[in-house]
């Protein structure tokens, strides 16, 4: 029998990772926009960032909110699935942040860097989505292992 962990604790940790990572990215983008970093093409920059973090963030926050409204019950998820989802989320958010922070040292313009980043962010985002899907599907009602 596989090791299992409490689903509520797992969801909250995932939510913290996503809220922290997305918060840093959003704050960075807000400051850059305020200082005119993207000029008249700020909407293009935001069009890159929002689909990059908001869908998964919305999923995580929605799951946590849903769980908070349920009657307390002991539910578990596969611990391996939880760890994969957690660390893939950390890696993905770190990759998005590094993409933003590395742009000034490259020869690429900000939007050109964003366009190019789809080469690596797209596949990783797909993996994160699958890992989170496995995390939620592996939920079982019962005691943690």
């Amino acid at each position, binding site marked *: 029998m596989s090791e299992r962990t409490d689903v509520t604790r797992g969801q909250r940790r995932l939510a913290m990772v996503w809220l922290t990572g997305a918060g840093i990215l959003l704050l960075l983008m807000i400051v850059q926009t305020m*200082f*005119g*970093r993207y*000029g*008249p093409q700020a909407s293009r920059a935001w069009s890159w960032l929002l689909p990059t973090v908001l869908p998964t963030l919305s999923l995580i926050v929605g799951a946590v909110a849903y769980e908070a409204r349920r009657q307390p019950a002991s539910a578990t998820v596969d611990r391996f699935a939880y760890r994969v989802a957690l660390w893939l989320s950390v890696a993905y958010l770190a990759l998005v942040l590094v993409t933003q922070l590395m742009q*000034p*040292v490259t020869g690429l*313009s*900000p939007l*050109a860097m964003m366009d190019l980043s789809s080469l690596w962010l797209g596949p990783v985002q797909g993996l994160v989505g699958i890992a989170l899907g496995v995390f939620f599907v592996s939920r079982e009602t019962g005691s943690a292992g």
Partner: protein
Amino acid sequence: MRASVMILCALPVAALACGGERVMVPATLSVYPTAVTVIPWQPRQMVPGVRTAEGTVLSGRAVTWSSANPEVAAVDSNGLVIALSSGETTVTASLDTLRAEATITVPGQTQLSDNPIFLASMPQFPGPQPPQWTTRFLLAEGLVTGAQPEPLGEAFDRIGDALRRAGVFEWATYGFGDSGFAMVARLEHIGDDGFPLESRWSAATVGERAFTLQEYLRRLFVAQPGRYRVIVFVVTHHPLVADTAAQATERAARGWLQAGAAALPAELRSLVVPGARTHALVYEFFRPTEDAEPVLVVESRTQGPHHLIRAGLWPEAALLP
């Protein structure tokens, strides 16, 4: 008897003495050719013919030249005809009371632009009027040095020398209209003050300053604008009016350097164009961020002469005759 013989013998001697001092009197004056078509970039030499009544050719006679319509074609004291505008006129050679005329025809504008010699040798700068510029500066009123008009080739060489002294070693040459030329200097990266930047010939802004933490943070949060300049020298006797419907782009300005010729052909170099002026057209482009397209600056912070000064081209004695 002896006196008669002496007189008879003296007559031939006297005749021989008088024949050595006989004056050749011009009887006829002619001009060659009698009718000719003259195009602006090819002055034509008229040749007078002076003969006696017996047909003896006389040389070294001072012939006076005049043109019935100097606005169509002018003629100098040596009989060199220069075409100025389309039309027809008569050039007259005068010697005392003798007159000879030649008909001079200057073809119209369409005929000039159809000239195979001109089209085959030179690409034309966008025209007939240049695209809207940022600012313009009239460098020289005419190309005249002293009393003699200057061939276009000398003006071309002078501008080329000034560009080289200013560190510009790449330019493109175009024909301009039917009797002028344009020299397009390479597009350069300048600061807001109009002075060339260290990365003068590069559009990139990365690597321009020392890479410190402060510089990194500046690049991370603040836009990196770019300002660029192209200087075009135009030598023409036509009035220069901008085509306001055609606004130059930075990409097109870069293309000007690629599409032009390296030098003036011989036909244009030897051309003397009275009344030609040298203009400096400045095209300035501003790019607010790295991703934005540079746009033409309509009202520059830097005036025309200051652009040339800060580019190292003015005051540059080499630009003036």
